[in-house]
């Protein structure tokens, strides 16, 4: 008889039942990853993972995170299989339901953010798998009447060497019982890294086969009997909504069932998607004023810059080291430098799609999201039911990069299903996805560095004026609990790896009513641009080579190693004809979690007549702690390097009169194949803990390109993206 021990009610137990075999549900007290002081760890980490072993030996592993291309549905099951000593060919991966037992142990929610999935679930997943293995061993020991210490495992097999007996996990599952209290497994009892046979070696991603044959995997592909279609024209600015619109005209169009005013936009419901999209083009609406109605991003950027220059304007201070203000005041000289970054858009190729079905007894939702817990909560709220009445069918995401942490599309679809009285497939048009997107904040930054008489750094002050993200994503209460520190904006605005004795960074809030979101790499895509160009400038002031200067200033040996490795890959000292190299250091993570580190070198040329920059090569050395899936880590670095190169060269959202000026891929260009340079990635192992990977390519590219352009032309690019007009202006 199988027993389950689950502290939280599973919303979809049926998907887990029915396999004749052994099911484990673990309630494991995960070792706290952080000290007591860390905000994330307030309530202690906890994870339950689900392992089911069928009598035929099939092992079903529930993956608590959602796939958006990053490979979590390979990496997490693989980690569990490693510790369970499972035969990987017998493993089937299943999406875990939304339940507290599957919460991310750091984030205390089921969510996929910050490249923290593998890092966060690392110890708890292994502990859960080790417990499952221990249960199997205990069952065999009892049956064979041998001490459990004499038993070992080989892939999916329990072995008693002394009597040369072997038994498969499936056979054990036929008689084993899960005890009321699972065996305790301490972290030090987990399999040592030296014995890993799966971790560190590439296995094919199971999703790749389906993705190469067009299988239905995404919300866009969902078909529900009796469903109708809808699209939502969202209000052009945050907080706005329709005052009036041409409802009668829209309703008279063929195959249109209704057009409804929602708080944040106008929903159009019809029998076919082509009908609702055609009607969307005929919408005439008057929108009510909102704080963002007058936003002019170009004018605002000048104000942001004025704010970082104004010593009287106080920002919220993030982490500090020593008294940088005093150190700079007393410095022999001060180097100051300013930077800007425009808004950028996620441009995930699947626009928002959600299928919702509000029924008398609950609501079903089919969608992809980076925050499953939130999606369920918001669907429940919108439908006016408890969360236990919500079934979330978790679909893979056609990209996300931070966009699908916000789940307004779930709320919209539920509202539209309520209005239609039917299941509704809500598809956002690309135009609406851009115009009503949520963007990485616009940044103005000023860095002041105090130097002593021998050019040694004595103090570093980093000022940021930018929109906020945390209040809109997590709520004002979280912002207050963090003492106003918007960690999404701040990320990367510190220099712990450099020999900088005093440091301060502050954030001047720019509340302009623009919709914001985390964007791949969060703040570091903007802040590290400023930091690493300033490092280059300091090298220039000191009359040193940017590589030598960094290596001398980096006090962390891991950091020196990635910079050195990237330089070596690029053959740094070789003189080029018509091109030049720029280098940068970057990091991803938080001090309590640990930083993954990256050294990046870009080789560029500049067409002086057109102002176009061409990137000829990217080299990247990445220290990721323990590489779980090395091939996928290379893929993620290629991916994030290309993503960042787009933000260096092209990507920008501009807003006039509150309205986003871009509307599709013709005016929000992402990089295409002909613009992709050869990319070389070296993955460095530095320990036995996997560190953040999915966004690691982001921080280094923009500064490396800027630094390369300086090496080539003697001019600094300080305003990202480096559009042809900006480049021409800088070269003039």
């Amino acid at each position: 008889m199988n027993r389950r021990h689950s502290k939280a009610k599973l919303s979809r137990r049926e998907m887990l039942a029915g396999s004749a075999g052994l099911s484990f549900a673990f309630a494991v007290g995960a070792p706290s990853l952080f000290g007591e002081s860390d905000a994330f760890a307030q309530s202690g980490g906890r994870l339950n993972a689900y392992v089911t072993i069928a009598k035929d030996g099939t092992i079903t592993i529930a993956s608590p995170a959602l796939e958006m291309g990053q490979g979590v549905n390979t990496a997490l099951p693989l980690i569990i299989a490693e510790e369970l000593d499972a035969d990987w060919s017998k493993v089937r991966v299943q999406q875990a339901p939304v339940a507290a037992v599957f919460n991310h142990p750091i984030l205390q929610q089921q969510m996929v953010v910050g490249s923290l999935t593998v890092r966060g679930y690392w110890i708890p997943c292994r502990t859960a798998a080790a417990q499952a293995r221990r249960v199997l061993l205990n069952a065999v020991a009892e049956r064979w009447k041998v001490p459990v210490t004499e038993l070992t495992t080989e892939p999916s097999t329990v072995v008693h060497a002394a009597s040369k007996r072997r038994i498969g996990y499936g056979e054990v599952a036929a008689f084993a019982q899960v005890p009321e209290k699972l065996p305790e497994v301490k972290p030090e009892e987990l399999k040592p890294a030296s014995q890993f046979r799966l971790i560190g070696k590439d296995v094919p991603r199971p999703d790749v086969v389906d993705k190469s044959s067009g299988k239905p995997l995404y919300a866009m592909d969902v078909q529900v009997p009796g469903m109708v279609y809808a699209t939502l024209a969202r209000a052009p600015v945050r907080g706005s909504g329709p005052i009036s619109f041409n409802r009668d005209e829209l309703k008279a169009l063929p195959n249109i069932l209704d057009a409804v005013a929602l708080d944040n936009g106008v929903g159009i419901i019809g029998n076919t998607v082509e009908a609702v999209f055609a009607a969307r083009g005929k919408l005439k609406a008057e929108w009510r004023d909102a704080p963002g109605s007058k936003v002019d991003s170009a004018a605002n950027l000048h104000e942001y810059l004025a704010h970082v220059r104004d010593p009287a304007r106080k920002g919220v201070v993030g982490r500090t080291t020593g008294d940088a203000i005093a150190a700079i005041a007393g410095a022999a000289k001060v180097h100051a430098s300013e930077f800007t970054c425009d808004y950028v858009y996620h441009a995930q190729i699947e626009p928002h799609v959600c299928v919702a079905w509000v029924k008398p007894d609950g609501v079903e939702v089919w969608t992809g999201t980076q925050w499953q817990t939130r999606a369920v909560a918001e669907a429940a709220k919108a439908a006016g039911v408890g969360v236990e009445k919500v079934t979330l069918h978790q679909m893979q995401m056609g990209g996300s990069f931070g966009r699908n942490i916000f789940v307004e599309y779930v709320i919209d679809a539920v509202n539209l299903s309520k209005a239609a009285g039917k299941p509704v497939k809500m598809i956002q048009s690309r135009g609406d996805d851009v115009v009503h997107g949520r963007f990485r904040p616009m940044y103005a930054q000023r860095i002041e560095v105090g130097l002593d008489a021998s050019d040694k750094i004595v103090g570093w002050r980093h000022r940021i004026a930018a929109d906020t993200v945390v209040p809109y994503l997590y709520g004002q209460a979280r912002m207050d609990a963090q003492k106003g520190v918007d960690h999404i904006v701040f990320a990367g605005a510190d220099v712990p790896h450099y020999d900088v004795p005093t440091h301060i960074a502050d954030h001047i809030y720019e509340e302009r009513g623009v919709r914001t979101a985390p964007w791949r790499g969060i703040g570091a895509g903007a802040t590290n641009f400023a930091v690493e160009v300033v490092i280059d400038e300091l090298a220039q002031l000191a009359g040193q080579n940017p590589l030598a200067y960094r290596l001398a200033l980096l006090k962390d040996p891991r950091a020196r190693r990635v910079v050195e490795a990237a330089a070596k890959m690029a053959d740094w000292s070789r003189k080029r004809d018509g091109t030049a190299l720029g280098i940068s250091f970057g990091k991803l993570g938080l001090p309590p979690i640990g930083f993954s580190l990256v050294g990046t070198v870009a080789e560029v040329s500049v067409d002086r007549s057109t102002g176009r920059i061409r990137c000829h090569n990217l080299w990247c050395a990445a220290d990721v702690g323990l590489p779980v899936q090395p091939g996928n880590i290379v893929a993620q670095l290629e991916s994030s390097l290309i993503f960042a190169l787009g933000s260096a060269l092209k990507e920008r959202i501009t807003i006039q009169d509150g309205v986003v000026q871009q509307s599709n891929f013709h005016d929000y260009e992402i990089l295409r194949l002909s613009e992709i340079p050869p990319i070389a990635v070296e993955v460095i192992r530095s320990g036995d803990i996997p560190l953040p990977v999915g966004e690691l390519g982001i921080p280094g590219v923009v500064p490396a390109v800027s630094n390369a352009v300086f090496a080539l032309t003697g001019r600094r690019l300080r305003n990202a993206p480096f559009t042809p007009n900006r480049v021409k202006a800088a070269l003039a």
Partner: protein
Amino acid sequence: MAVVAFTINGRPAKVEVAPDTPLLWIVREHLKLSGTKYGCGTGLCGSCTVHVDGRAVRSCQVVASQLGGKQVTTIEGLAADANHPLQRAWIAEQVPQCGYCQSGQIMQAAELLATNKKPSREQIVAHMDGNLCRCGTYPRIVRAIERAAREA
């Protein structure tokens, strides 16, 4: 509304739609062949690429009234058991990340290999330049096409 008869993946199909209905929605939502993806609706991203009479086209830019008697092939009909050399190469090179654009990438690449058995890298880049991939799988797409050309 009009009835349009054409061939999809070798089988006859008949749909009743407005004449200006994009082939994309006919394929995806009327015929439920959802491998073909909506990305931009304006022929800018390539995620909806299918073959019409053997030529790769953006299905969001072809409408029902142009379809009569045409042979349409989608990712589902590219090869029996999804065993096209490109699909095998896509798996061998572990190309997809999120995977959303990949049907369109494969259909675009299939047109190239159908007419040019051994494309140069420059020819691959030129042929594939209109298909966007936000995950940046581009280096692997090129490798997979080269592999398919080699192993086909």
